[in-house]
């Protein structure tokens, strides 16, 4: 079965550069979530989108932005990269979102994109 696809899998950038990560959700999933996991840390929620609109915002820095496109894929744009941005960035997707959707939906994670800032 198709899973959440993230690209690129690995990315090396220099400080102050810009990086874009892409996420392709499971077909028919309308909700996308972005998480950041630093070395030895638990995943931190960054931002989520439902039906192409931002639905929740976590600890996403102002230097980062994200959007969900008409085909439901999402892109996380990171500018003015800092060494501390080096992390594994997970994208996850689910079908349905918000109050009343029922609690039977499950969130599926992609393999993650490794970003190294040097």
């Amino acid at each position: 079965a198709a899973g959440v696809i993230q690209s690129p899998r690995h990315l090396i950038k220099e400080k102050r550069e810009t990086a874009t990560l892409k996420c392709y959700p499971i077909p028919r999933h309308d909700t996308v979530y972005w998480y950041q996991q630093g070395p030895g840390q638990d995943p931190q929620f960054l931002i989520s989108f439902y039906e192409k609109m931002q639905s929740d915002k976590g600890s996403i820095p102002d230097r980062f932005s994200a959007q969900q496109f008409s085909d439901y894929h999402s892109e996380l744009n990171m500018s003015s990269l800092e060494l501390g941005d080096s992390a594994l960035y997970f994208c996850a997707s689910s079908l349905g979102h918000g109050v009343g959707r029922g609690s039977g939906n499950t969130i599926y994670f992609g393999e993650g994109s490794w970003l190294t800032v040097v």
Partner: protein
Amino acid sequence: EDKVVQSPLSLVVHEGDTVTLNCSYEVTNFRSLLWYKQEKKAPTFLFMLTSSGIEKKSGRLSSILDKKELSSILNITATQTGDSAIYLCAVEASGGSNYKLTFGKGTLLTVNP
């Protein structure tokens, strides 16, 4: 602020042992609790628990939710070296039209031969 606490943080056992991992939470508008297994890649979904007292089982793994105690346990019986991983507990909460998943710090399980 929503909080998820896992214990122990680290556990080392021998193959064949049984382990119990704990997760407690404090969230507003709880919806469900999820367990994930993380090796050197994205977390793999194990269980989603929404109802108290109903055990979910998958092979040697089982989990149960106690909404009164705001906690859950993940049991692994007859552990194998392949069970070595970080086990993450996450709680799904909602508020208005918002939704989020809050993770605990994980339990690092090491199973020695």
